[in-house]
């Protein structure tokens, strides 16, 4: 008995360590870290080192819990502001987009793989959701600094489409396995009401649960070490409670995270870090388990069909669905192309493909294997090319500020103030003569060469000083600017932000006089800033770009209230490519070697407690 315990733990920890170490390698390779985890699972599984694991129920159970943890974290880390910006397009993609992708993919699967119609749509539903883990990871860790709206759309889409794909898949499995009886005429009506009930209950439980979590954390004086565990447990409680009463647990747990993360919850920073860690663990577990569960030796026969379907999904189904869904939202062509390319499939799709096996469907294994191959194709092709593609489409924004050394300390008794510890880096604005800290920042202590001194005694700040500042939470972003090292200005930045600066407070008519832009009579009376804001539909955002006849105006900066404070002027309207192109083998090889010689990307912000 004891032997078995040690053996199981040994194998488990060895797998986890292998996965954790592989993340170091993956950072250098760029994208497919998750692929590596999956690979480790496959290598040690039935057809590799021979770990036997074919318990579909256990795999589904572990995967679902892991997904709940990941969704809670992704909700927790999504700021409400981003939600406001991208809710429209993201939710359209998550609902109509999933439906369209399911339908298109289902049709292809029926003709290519020869599954029955219902089975084909089931397969389509399983692979219709983009993987939150994969998308988040690629965007955040890949150092891809995207325009906010594009990034927000992708992140929120990937968080919210899982519940919908899960609903569709499970409903189809139940229909097929005969657990769900519906009569022919009312089938659509029943499905729709089932959907609304599922999502409605999930949303209600999720939002209520999120608020409850915030209250409980505030009320109960738990030990600090226990608090994150407490929150995690509560989130899983929300997940299971919603599921138990017939709602979507996944939607509930995502919304609970969203509510909790956007409230003034106690020890927000510590919770965030803990959730991040748990999210990593959940991803590793999920991919390892799914990798172990798969049996690659069965893939042979359906491999070509699976690859064809994977490519169909990437090249036809997803782009068509994205294009149709984004039509009403006025996305630039290159942005729409990018969004359709970052439709990564991941563990969720594989997880969902287990349900046909659980439901005892005849073709269950075949459906699972096909979905597995589709996911592999997506991870390899898309995961590997996201970075280069974003650069190619000109979507990566220059960093706003340079690297920064900062530590945030939470103060007991207040969620609104924090103590920030900055290390002064050479060349940062605070070291320049005459640059003082604003009065609202209350520098309380300076540590220089190991000696602590008061602010008044320290004189001008020097590189290497540690400055402790007591500050209201909202204003810390402004301080970052003062303490950051100067952002490097690359030649491309001038392309991105325009050669010349334009004062947004000047009348728009001046632009017409200088460059011959054609304006309407009311537009002439506006200031340039107001004109740009109006053309952007009322809300201007960093790096937005509008075209005014022969010139482009680019938003270089906005203030706290969303007013434009700085504009750039470019004479070269951006040319965008229509469809993404997979780089050829030679290019891919060159890029890989470039990546290998590059340092890990995430050095920009050192944050610890």
């Amino acid at each position, binding site marked *: 008995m004891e032997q078995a315990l040690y053996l199981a733990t040994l194998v488990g920890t060895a797998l986890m360590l292998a996965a954790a170490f592989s993340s170091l390698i993956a950072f250098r390779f760029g994208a497919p870290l998750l692929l590596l985890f999956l690979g480790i699972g496959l290598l040690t599984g039935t057809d590799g080192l021979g770990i036997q694991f074919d318990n579909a129920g256990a795999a589904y159970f572990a995967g679902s819990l892991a997904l709940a943890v990941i969704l809670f974290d992704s909700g927790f880390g999504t700021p409400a502001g981003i939600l406001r910006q991208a809710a429209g397009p993201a939710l359209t993609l998550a609902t109509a987009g999933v439906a369209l992708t399911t339908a298109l993919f289902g049709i292809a699967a029926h003709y290519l793989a020869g599954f029955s119609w219902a089975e084909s749509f089931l397969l389509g539903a399983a692979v219709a959701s983009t993987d939150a883990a994969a998308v988040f990871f690629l965007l955040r860790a890949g150092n891809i600094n995207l325009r906010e709206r594009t990034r927000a759309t992708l992140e929120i889409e990937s968080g919210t489409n899982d519940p919908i794909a899960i609903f569709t898949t499970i409903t189809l499995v139940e229909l097929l396995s005969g657990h769900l009886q519906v009569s022919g005429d009312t089938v659509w009506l029943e499905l729709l009401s089932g959907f609304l009930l599922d999502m409605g209950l999930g949303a209600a439980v999720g939002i209520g649960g999120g608020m409850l979590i915030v209250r409980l954390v505030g009320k109960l004086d738990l030990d600090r070490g226990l608090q994150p565990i407490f929150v995690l447990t509560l989130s899983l409680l929300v997940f299971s409670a919603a599921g138990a009463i017939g709602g979507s647990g996944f939607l509930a747990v995502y919304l609970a995270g969203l509510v909790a993360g956007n409230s003034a919850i106690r020890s927000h920073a510590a919770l965030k870090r803990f959730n991040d860690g748990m999210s990593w663990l959940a991803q590793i577990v999920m991919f390892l388990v799914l990798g172990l569960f798969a049996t690659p030796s069965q893939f042979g026969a359906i491999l070509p069909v699976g690859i064809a379907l994977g490519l169909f999904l990437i090249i036809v189904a997803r782009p068509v669905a994205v294009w149709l869904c984004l039509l009403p939202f006025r996305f630039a062509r290159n942005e729409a192309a990018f969004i359709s390319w970052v439709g990564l499939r991941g563990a969720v799709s594989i997880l969902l493909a287990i349900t046909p096996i659980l439901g005892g469907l005849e073709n269950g294994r075949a459906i699972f294997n096909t979905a597995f191959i589709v996911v592999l194709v997506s991870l390899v092709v898309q995961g590997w090319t996201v970075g280069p593609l974003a650069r190619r489409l000109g979507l990566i924004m220059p960093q706003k500020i340079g690297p920064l050394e900062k530590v945030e300390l939470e103060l007991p008794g207040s969620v609104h103030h924090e103590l920030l510890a900055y290390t002064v880096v050479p060349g940062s604005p605070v070291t320049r003569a005459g640059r003082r800290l604003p009065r609202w920042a209350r520098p309380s202590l300076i540590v220089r060469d190991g000696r602590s001194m008061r602010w008044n005694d320290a004189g001008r700040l020097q590189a290497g000083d540690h400055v402790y500042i007591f500050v209201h939470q909202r204003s810390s972003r402004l301080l970052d600017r003062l303490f950051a090292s100067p952002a490097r200005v690359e030649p491309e930045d001038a392309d991105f932000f325009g050669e010349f600066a334009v004062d947004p407070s*000047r009348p728009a008519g001046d632009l017409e*006089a*200088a*460059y*011959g832009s054609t304006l309407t009579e009311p537009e002439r009376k506006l200031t340039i800033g107001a004109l740009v804001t109006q053309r952007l539909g009322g809300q201007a955002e960093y790096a937005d770009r509008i075209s005014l006849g022969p010139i482009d105006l680019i938003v270089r900066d906005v203030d706290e209230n969303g007013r434009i404070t*700085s504009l750039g002027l470019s004479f070269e309207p951006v040319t965008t490519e229509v469809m993404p192109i997979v780089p050829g083998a030679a290019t891919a090889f060159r890029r890989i070697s470039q990546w290998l010689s590059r340092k890990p990307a995430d050095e920009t912000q050192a944050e610890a407690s």
Partner: protein
Amino acid sequence: MDLTDLIEVPAILPALKAQTKKQLLQLLAERAATETGLPEREIFETILQRERLGSTGVGNGIAIPHGKMAGVKRITGVFARLENPVDFDALDDQPVDLVFLLLAPEGAGADHLKALSRIARVLRDGDTVAKIRGATDAAAIHALLAQSATPHAA
């Protein structure tokens, strides 16, 4: 487009002395007046009008003041290398020591903008700029501007 189409050797001032942005613009306008045969005052007003829209200092000590004027026959440039850099309200707060003034006819439209972005591009090249800063006579600067046009032509 070749930069030397826009500027003649006599329109290059290799060691201009100016104390302020305003004085610098005046000296440039004076030079442009002899090139175009238009009144100096009018040229000065035109480029000053554009400066009000936002400084044409593009950073790294470079400025490209410009404007459109009736009466200008063709796109005309004046280039100056300053002895001592002057403050130009540039975005990066650096004083300016290389200035390319560009005047275009009222109807120049796209050509005007093309010329501007060409100049900005050439003056973004670190090597060229360093060499121009080191040059001492008009002909040498003219040659550098001409040279820089070729490798980037594609």
